[in-house]
Structure formats: structure tokens, C-alpha cells
């Protein structure tokens, strides 16, 4: 139990001191450990009081064996991936005549980044010198194991195929966090019923707009998911949020038609529905997701052959009618993209409309229309959809 004496040493990249009281706040200890796992490893001492970063006094930890065991359990629960014995060990250590705890942290570079699970969300702290800061988006992405993104992409592809097999003519938009976020679907069902689905203003839409924040009946709570919709499986749409953070929005192609020629997509429907999905995702994920949580977004159109799209905004009246509606030029029945888009959640939180716009832009491209053909109601400068009052 004897170890190199920590007293009078200073905190640095590899060394952190916590008083005995810190045991009452295992989350704070977890943050220190996660930060070291995401850096170069080191030691976290519990029961060492520090002054200005220098260890000055050892404090006895009552029942140290049990405290060590309990702390390790807590770390295993709070960190993702859960640390192995080789990565994190908690040991009772005698310093002068007091028993304190020492946490030895040895990261595995192929398992970084390690996330601290806090309030249902994932956080990625990293130790820099003797301080901690949140990892940047780039750091998280660079370190995000390809496998996680691959897994999420695979899940999204499989979901898309399931919808495709159902044979409905529809537009679907799928959002899938690359790392799991925990959503309380029961609480979400209540919020949808009591507020969101009766109050589209929560996502900045009016009732007359085209959005997913309305339902023909109360939302249904299923196994680890909540669903709502309008008249589905008859047209027009359904939406689903799953407990691990995945979201599905499926809208019948018929519901994208409002006026104009037969099988003509109404540009405002095409713009507003996806943007409303991202605004809903922002609201639903804002607590459980962290800024860095990568969200994979995929869009697909089934049965699109023969459908048309016209450039410009319908609110321009006859100017809009001057342009001819362009038919989907490919012979395929379906329009899908090989690569989904990936947005760190911070982008969805800060500019949800821009995320939706990026998906819509792909649709215009697929119809052979330039970006400028997208209705001007999407303000390119502010990155916001601004509908007239």
C-alpha cells in the first residue's frame, strides 16, 4: 500500500488531487478520470487536500476498501466505453498515517474518446495541463472510432431499406446519433401530447405551415419509442423517436403536393418538412446530446419517378408559374444517396434550418436544378427559413 509520496507535488497533466469530500460527488471524479483517459493518463488522488494546485494534507478515507470498490463501480457506469481493469484501477494507499485512494488511469488509444455520461448525455472532457476542457468537434470526430459511424450508417441504411420494402411512395428523413443518447420516450410522449403537437410555435412554425409538429391523434408510446402522425398509413406522414436517439420522419409523396400540375412537389412542403424535422430534433436532443454528438442524417424518396419540381418560390405568384416544372430525370423509382450527411449536434442546435437546407439542396441537384432554385424563404445569409407573417 505504500506509494510515492504525493504531498508537496503539484497538479499537472498526469496528476490531480481531490479532497475526501469528493467521494460524495462521484460525477466530478468521473469527469477527472474521463479527461485523463482522453489525454495521456495519470493519477487521481482522493483524500489529498490541495492549495493552489499543491498537495498539502492527506485525509483519511473511512472504510477505504469499500469506498474504492464503490468508486470503481461508479466509474464503470459513468464512462463509455466502460474502462477495463487495465485502464482504470482504484487502490487504497497509505500516505503518512492516512489511507487515501489513488486512481490509476491508463488510456487505450484505440478506445478514445471516452465519454462521460451525464444527465443522459455524452460529454467528452480532456485534460490539458492541470485543467479540463471539452474536446472540440474535430477532436471528437478524429477520435470517433470509424466503427461507431459505420454502425450508425448501417442502422440507418437498414431502416431505409425497411421503409423501401414497405412499397409506399414517400419521402423519408432519418436521423441517427453515432453514439447512443438516452431519451425518456415516456416523458417525450407527454410533452408531445400536452404541448409540442398542439403548439408548433415551439419549433417556430405556424399551424398553417407544413411541419411534423401536428398529429391527427394522440402520440403512441411503444417499446422504447414514441410515434405520432397524420392519418398514416394513409397519407400524410408519421414520425418516430426511439429511446436511443434515432428519429424517423416519413411523409407520403402525395403530401408534398399542394397545387400545380399533377405529381408536382410544392417547394414549400419540400423545404418546410425537413427543416421542421431538424427543429424538432434540436428540441428533443438538446438535453441528452452533447455538442459533439455526431448525428447522421439521411433522406430518401421512394416512387419519385414521374414527380416534378419547379424552381422558385410559390409566393412569387405568376413569376413562379413562368418556370416549367422539371420532371425527375432518372429512370429509377427511388432517389437515395450513397453517403448520408453527418452533423455534430452543435450544428443542429445552432442552425437546424441550415441542416435541413443541405438535405433539400441534394434533392434540387437530383432534379438538375441549381441551389438558387430553392425558395428564397430560406434566407441564405442567416441560414434560417423565414416564412411571411
Amino acid at each position, binding site marked *: 500500500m505504500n506509494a510515492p509520496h504525493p504531498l508537496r507535488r503539484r497538479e499537472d497533466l498526469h496528476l490531480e488531487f481531490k479532497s475526501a469530500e469528493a467521494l460524495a460527488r462521484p460525477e466530478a471524479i468521473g469527469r477527472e478520470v474521463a479527461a485523463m483517459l482522453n489525454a495521456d493518463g495519470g493519477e487521481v488522488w482522493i483524500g489529498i487536500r490541495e492549495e493552489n494546485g499543491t498537495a498539502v494534507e492527506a485525509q483519511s478515507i473511512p472504510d477505504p476498501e469499500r469506498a474504492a470498490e464503490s468508486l470503481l463501480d461508479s466509474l464503470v457506469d459513468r464512462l463509455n466505453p466502460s474502462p477495463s481493469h487495465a485502464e482504470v484501477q482504484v487502490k487504497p494507499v497509505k500516505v503518512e498515517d492516512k489511507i487515501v485512494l489513488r486512481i490509476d488511469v491508463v488510456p487505450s488509444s484505440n478506445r478514445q474518446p471516452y465519454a462521460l455520461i451525464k444527465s443522459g448525455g455524452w460529454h467528452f472532457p480532456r485534460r490539458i495541463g492541470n485543467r479540463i476542457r471539452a474536446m472540440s468537434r474535430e477532436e471528437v470526430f478524429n477520435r470517433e472510432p470509424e466503427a461507431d459511424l459505420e454502425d450508425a450508417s448501417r442502422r440507418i441504411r437498414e431502416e431505409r431499406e425497411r421503409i423501401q420494402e414497405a412499397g409506399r411512395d414517400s419521402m423519408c428523413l432519418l436521423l441517427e446519433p453515432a453514439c447512443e443518447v438516452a431519451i425518456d420516450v415516456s416523458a417525450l410522449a407527454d410533452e408531445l401530447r*400536452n404541448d409540442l403537437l398542439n403548439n408548433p410555435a415551439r419549433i417556430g412554425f405556424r399551424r398553417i405551415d407544413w411541419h411534423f409538429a*401536428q398529429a391527427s391523434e*394522440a*402520440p403512441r408510446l411503444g417499446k422504447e419509442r414514441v410515434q405520432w402522425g*397524420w392519418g398514416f398509413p394513409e*397519407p400524410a*406522414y408519421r414520425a418516430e423517436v426511439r429511446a436511443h436517439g434515432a428519429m424517423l420522419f416519413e411523409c*407520403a409523396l402525395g403530401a408534398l403536393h399542394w397545387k400545380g400540375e*399533377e405529381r408536382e412537389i410544392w417547394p414549400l412542403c419540400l423545404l418546410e418538412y425537413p427543416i421542421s424535422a431538424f427543429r424538432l430534433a434540436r428540441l428533443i436532443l438538446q438535453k441528452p446530446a452533447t455538442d459533439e454528438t455526431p448525428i447522421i442524417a439521411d433522406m430518401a424518396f421512394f416512387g419519385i419517378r414521374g414527380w416534378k419540381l419547379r424552381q422558385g418560390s410559390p409566393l412569387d405568384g405568376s413569376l413562379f408559374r413562368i418556370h416549367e416544372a422539371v420532371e425527375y430525370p432518372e429512370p429509377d423509382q427511388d432517389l437515395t444517396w450513397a453517403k448520408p450527411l453527418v452533423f455534430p449536434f452543435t450544428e443542429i442546435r445552432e442552425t437546424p434550418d441550415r441542416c435541413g437546407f443541405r438535405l433539400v439542396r441534394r434533392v434540387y441537384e437530383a432534379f438538375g436544378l441549381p441551389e438558387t432554385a430553392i425558395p428564397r424563404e430560406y434566407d441564405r445569409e442567416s441560414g434560417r427559413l423565414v416564412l411571411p407573417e
Partner: protein
Amino acid sequence: MDLNAIVEDQNPWWREPTRRTAGRFPVRRDLQGVLLEHVLDLEDRRATVVLGPRQVGKTTLVLQTADDLLDRGWPPHNLTYFDFSDDRILQPVTARQVVDAHPVGFDGEQPRALLLDEIHLAPNWPSWLKQAVDRGGGRDRIVVTDSAASLLREAGRESGQGRWDEHRLEGLSFREFARLMADEEESVEEAWRRTPNLLERYLATGGFPEHVAATDPQSVRRRLRSDIVERAILRDLAGHVDRVEPVRDLFVYLVQESGAIFSAQGASNVLGPDVRSVRRWISLLEDTFLLVSLPKHAQRASTGLKNPQPKIFAADHGLISAFSVLPMQEPALRAQAFEAVVFRHLRDVARKLGGELSYFRLRQDLEIDFVLETAEERLALEVTAARQLKAKKLNRLRNAHNALKADRSFLLHGALIEGEPEGLTALPLQRFLLDPLDSLTGNAR
């Protein structure tokens, strides 16, 4: 332009028998079938009077009737349409002059259809209509339209009895609106399922057919304001009052207060004119069909006479959003629109069932928005735009139901409500609007 030229221009099928004029209005109003049936029923000698506010679609209705008659083989030269509000008319034209302006090819032995639009602009039209019905013996099938009730009243309802049937044409019902928005070969129910915001669009734009197809609800509001104020009020009422501006102000005030219990004193206090003037102007405004009153329910007939206290509603809910300074999503405005739209559809139900509509109010916490009294039963209908049904509100409704001695009570709501509140029938607004009669009588699909 002389009268014959105008008449010929308004009846292009005289020159080209295949010519149709209402083709750009493909959707038929519910009343259209009634008119067509009436004209084709040669056993019925009575005329038909269609009453409704300006811009509600009366002209389209009669032109569609003309098209349908021609499609069914009605002799083109025996069909005369005339719009007395044609701007090219410089001198007043009588109905007799129009009738006499028949074309070459007119067959006097065959029945003749006369579709006369805005008849009140024809001098002495009531006496002409009485004589035409009495002497025609059913050979002249006459349909006239009017947008000013006062003139009809002047014509004398008594003299009209047995001579003509009155039909009210209101703004589009939700079903008519959905039919207008539906794709070809798409049913109303399919259009409604396809378009989640259909009801919201209906609530925002109102039921004036000329405006509902507009893409931008804001422009609908603007157009309604100018058209209604400029044409229906400033122009139509100009000859009936010294200054028309205070009447316009009263109209805007009443629309903004739609659904409130009317107090002439209250309006006088707010707007300035004396109570007598307010009462007279109310009568004029009601004659434009743009405002509709709802009497207080009288459990004893004598009570009703002593204390009428009507509520005044905008005839079409589109007027509420058009004249409001608030955006449509404002809860108070939404609640007003809900009530106005329910009232509009209940008027149809009451006409079909021969029932009477009123509101019930015993005291502040014991009231019901609408009471529909038919020969068979008394129905109570409470309307709410609230998101949640609070127990307190339900209890108040049950108490009011008991005080009113209603046979059945309905709660018309726009929320996502699960289950059935005890003793009441909770009816989603859109289901009611799609089938008002059936949803109240229990025959909803």
C-alpha cells in the same frame, strides 16, 4: 353600350351553343344541386332567391347552373343570365327589359330559364317577380340572387310566400373548401388526410371562394379587408346613412368582438355614436349578411322577448383574421375563429333540421356556446380551442347541460384528447366540420 349588346355579351351560348362560362370554377357548391333541381322541376312554379354576402360566390353558382343546364340539353336561346351590377350599365335596367331582350331562336313554347344576378339593382323588381311567378305558371324558371337583405325585406316576405324559396349562400363550408383543394378524383377525406394543415388553412383564409386559393394568407387578409370595406360597406351602405365611416368602424369593432354578447351601449361608449344610431347601423350591417346574430336561449318565450341580448358573430371566420390586429396563432383569435366556424356550420345543420340556434347563459359560470333545438331534441355544444380539457371546464359544462336540460351535449375541440369525458361527446373540430349533420345525429362515417 346598349342593353341588347350587354345581354348578348353576358349570354355567349346564344352565339356559340357549346360555350360555357363557369369552367374555371370546377368545384360545385352544395347549393348548386338544389338550384339545378329547382330549375329542372317544371311542376314547381316558384322562383328561387339566393341570398348571400358579396363575394360569397353567388355569380359563380348561377353561372355553374347555366353550364349544367346547357350540358343537360337546355335550349341555349331559352336561357338568359343577367348581372344587374355590370359596370357597363349606365341607366337602371328593369327585369322586364332583360326578359324582353331574348335572342333570335328563342322558342316561346318551351320553358325559359332566367338567372338574374344582383336583382336588387333592378327597379321595382319585387312586383315584377310576383307577376312573373303568378302569370308564368312555371314556364319561366327564375333564379335571382341578392346581397342586400333589407331590399328583400322591403319586397315583403309575405308576398314572397308561395312565390319564391329563399336559400342562403354562405362562405365555403370546410367540406366545400376541402373539395376545392382536393386533386382531381380525390375524395374530400383523402385530401384531408393528405394535407395535415388543411383545417388551419381554412381557419386562416376563411370561406370566401375568390380568396381561398391564394398562396399567401396575408394577401387574403388584405384583400378581404379592402373588398369588404370598400365594396360591401362603403358602397352598398352609402345611400342608407349620412356618413358611412362610423358604420365601417362599428363593423370592424363587431368583427373584432365576434362571438361577444352585443351591447349597443357598450359599442356606443367605445365608438362614440349614440345608442339609437348603433342599433340602426347594426340592422344595416346584418342586412349585408356579413354579421350574424345568435339569440340568447329562452327557456320561456317571454324571457327571450324581454332580454334578447344577442351575440354577434362575423358571418365568415375569414373576416376575423382579416380584421384582427393579432396574428392567427393568438389563442384568443383562434378561439373566436373556432366559434365562428362552428356557428357557420351549425346554421347549415339548423336549416336542414328546421331547428333553432341560440346560446345559453344563466350566469357567468353556467353557459353553453350553442344550443340547437329541433322538434326532437335539444343539443348543447361547447367549443374549445384549448389544448387540454381541464376538469373544471368539463364540470361547468356538465352543470350547464343539466341547467339547460339538454338531451345531449357535445364538446367540439381542436386538441388531441383521449377518451370520452363522462356524459359528454367529445368531437374533434375537423370531424364535425367534415360532416356536421352526421356527427351530431350520430351517422358520421
